[in-house]
């Protein structure tokens, strides 16, 4: 067991935590936070597992860099959509408040 593997396990834990949060939490922004945690977890697994023999591996590192950029792009887009959605509907969740809505038409 090497140090890198420790991080890989931490990554696994983060994945599970993030996944749990992603499914259970209702507030969209919290879902997004959970998603980011999960993303970090996956990146840790990716690098930690690949480097568990102690040799730094530039390929997964480059992959994680790419992954981080993709994640931030997605996060930023999600924030734009969510704020727009909130702006138009006043909702912060996808299902939460639908019962409270006045009957339409």
């Amino acid at each position, binding site marked *: 067991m090497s140090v890198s*593997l420790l991080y890989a396990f931490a990554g696994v834990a983060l994945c*599970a935590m993030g996944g749990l949060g992603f499914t259970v939490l209702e507030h969209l922004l919290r879902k997004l936070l959970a998603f980011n945690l999960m993303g970090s977890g996956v990146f840790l697994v990716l690098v930690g597992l690949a480097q568990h023999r102690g040799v730094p591996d*530039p*390929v997964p*590192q*480059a992959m994680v860099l790419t992954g981080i*950029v993709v994640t931030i*792009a997605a996060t930023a887009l999600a924030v734009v959509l969510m*704020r727009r959605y909130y*702006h138009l509907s006043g909702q912060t969740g996808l299902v939460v408040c639908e019962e409270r809505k006045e009957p339409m038409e």
Partner: protein
Amino acid sequence: MGRLTLVTAGMVFSGVFAGLAWAVWTIAEAPVPVSLPTLVSENLQAAGVEHPVTAVLLNFRSYDTLLEIAVLVIAGIAGISMSRTRSLEDPGLRTSDSLLYALERWFFPVMMLFAGYLLWAGSDRPGGAFQAGSVLAATAVLMRLGGVPMDFLRPGVMLRLGLTVGFSVFLVVALASALDGDVFLQYPEVITKPLIVLIETGLTLSIAMVLLALFVAAPIDPAEELEEGGAE
């Protein structure tokens, strides 16, 4: 969300954790048949840059990076397509926070310098377009929170040019490299390094621009004009 659902989800994800941990453990025990780090260091000479991560990003696996920048540009486009189209600049936002205002004096120039350094360092040391771009973007966001006017954020030609400059440069290089019959993205050997630096510069600008555009594209004031949007 009922308690039952919560418990079920908790159990499911404990299971996920256990399964994944077991998988990681078994994988760590087995030998790895292919060693990419060795391959990378063997070919580093031909890659044109000394830093292996940059070599992977911009040479060995440059197609990934190209598509990744495309993802960024898409997010930017989707973001500005959602924004109120008149202007991305929101005067109502400017805070008169004295701390930020003070920061502006010395913090921003330093950050700019730092971004430039990161970009330049990328070829032989840790650093590169992503880091530089995100530092630049972060700085700009802070500047904007600090109330610095940014006219170039109008959704006009300038903004779009900024969004796509890095991507376009990358694309042109990719195409040009094939002109003399080579495969795509295969840089001519002599000018590999300048090309990579050129791409990186473009990317830095674009990354910063996209992130900034996405930051300001979100509708700012929830109180205003609720009627706007849906009905067209």
